[in-house]
């Protein structure tokens, strides 16, 4: 399959990427390209210019910073999954990264690309929302609770580039997903965390048009951080996705099961 024609450009810095993006009639950033290129081959996307940001060094880093782990937007899933820094500070995040796609996809796909794309079934949004991370961009810092706004929709403005994400180091956290057997995308995935201030967050991906929190589960886990605490809590199927892979009711069931398992892993 051949994409529509476009002009390929390489940016060497975030500033240069911003300038190239601004100059292009309908430019798009190319990071790992593991979603964008597939969409272009299906001719679902037709950018005039692709601005390759994968070679920008300032976007590629993992560092412990006080009570947080800060990961550059250009860091690949493989780099996150195999990072000793991430494994020590937030093992659930390294585990999540190791479950994305397959090894070849993980060698290319990036944290920033996944989060900016906000696919309803992507894994990273669950960790970003589940840990209450902060998304830093070329212009500002955005709290996870404000960032994810709907199916493939985020708070990012035109031309704004995600540069890094700061994840608070939790007391405990875990991620469990039920992968679609063919695509490995989450049919439902639950990221559960107890942060250092004692607050609880439960974020669900794959089940609805956009990643979301479950306040009832968070309240129950605040009282008792056990799988039993969430076992009887079901999300409303009316708000969930229904497709050839599973009905909304089935996804609602999976949400509770994945949340239970994640709590068991974290506890």
């Amino acid at each position, binding site marked *: 399959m051949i994409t529509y024609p476009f002009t390929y450009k390489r940016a060497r810095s975030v500033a240069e990427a911003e300038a190239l993006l601004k100059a292009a009639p309908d430019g798009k950033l190319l990071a790992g390209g593991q979603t964008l*290129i597939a969409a272009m*081959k299906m001719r679902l996307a037709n950018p005039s210019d*692709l601005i390759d940001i994968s070679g920008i060094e300032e976007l590629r880093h993992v560092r412990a910073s006080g009570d947080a782990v800060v990961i550059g937007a250009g860091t690949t899933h493989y780099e996150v999954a195999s990072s000793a820094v991430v494994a020590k500070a937030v093992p659930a995040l390294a585990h999540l990264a190791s479950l994305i796609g397959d*090894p070849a996809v993980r060698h290319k796909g990036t944290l920033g690309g996944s989060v900016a794309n906000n696919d309803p079934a992507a894994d990273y949004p669950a960790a970003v929302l589940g840990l209450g991370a902060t998304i830093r961009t070329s212009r500002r810092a955005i709290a996870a609770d404000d960032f994810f706004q709907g199916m493939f929709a985020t708070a990012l403005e035109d031309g704004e580039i995600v540069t890094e994400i700061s994840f608070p180091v939790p007391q405990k956290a875990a991620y469990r997903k039920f992968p679609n057997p063919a695509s490995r995308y989450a049919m439902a995935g639950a990221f559960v965390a107890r942060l250092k201030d004692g607050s609880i967050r439960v974020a669900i991906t794959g089940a609805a048009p956009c990643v979301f929190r479950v306040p009832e589960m968070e309240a129950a886990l605040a009282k008792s951080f056990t799988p039993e605490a969430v076992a009887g809590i079901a999300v409303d199927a009316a708000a969930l996705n229904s497709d050839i892979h599973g009905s909304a009711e089935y996804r609602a069931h999976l949400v509770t099961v994945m949340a239970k398992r994640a709590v068991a892993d974290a506890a």
Partner: protein
Amino acid sequence: MAVLSMTVNGKEVSTEAEDRTLLVNFLREQLRLTGTHIGCDTSQCGACVVHVDGKAVKACSMFAAQAEGARVTTIEGLAKDGKLHPVQEAFRDNHGLQCGFCTPGMIMTAVDMIRRNGVMDRDTIRHELEGNICRCTGYVNIVTAIEDAAKRMTAGEKAA
């Protein structure tokens, strides 16, 4: 249209290509390295796996322009001096292929996973093979071949 330069299987190449040329088409059509296969074209089957700067990637899911200046290794680049790579040997010895269509991708994926993990248990090998699909015969002999190759290569390192 731009002139692309990269190192493919140890050789410098420099060829004109459209910006939208996928790496897999660049390798197959421009360089005539047809060992890298196109099985699905939707990034699911893994028949097009090659190594770019030492890492396994799907050549159908990147543009050739992204590999400008990179080191690319395809299935044609594994055998050295007429001698098969240990993973190729192990696939032959363990009947790790039937029709052979998926095999180049399987082998490139296997070389990459052995480099990262060394000797692995069968569950790990199956998890690592998630991006490669075989439609002939199933995965038992493929897993056995990779298990065998990893042992041979590790033993080889120890002997060396």
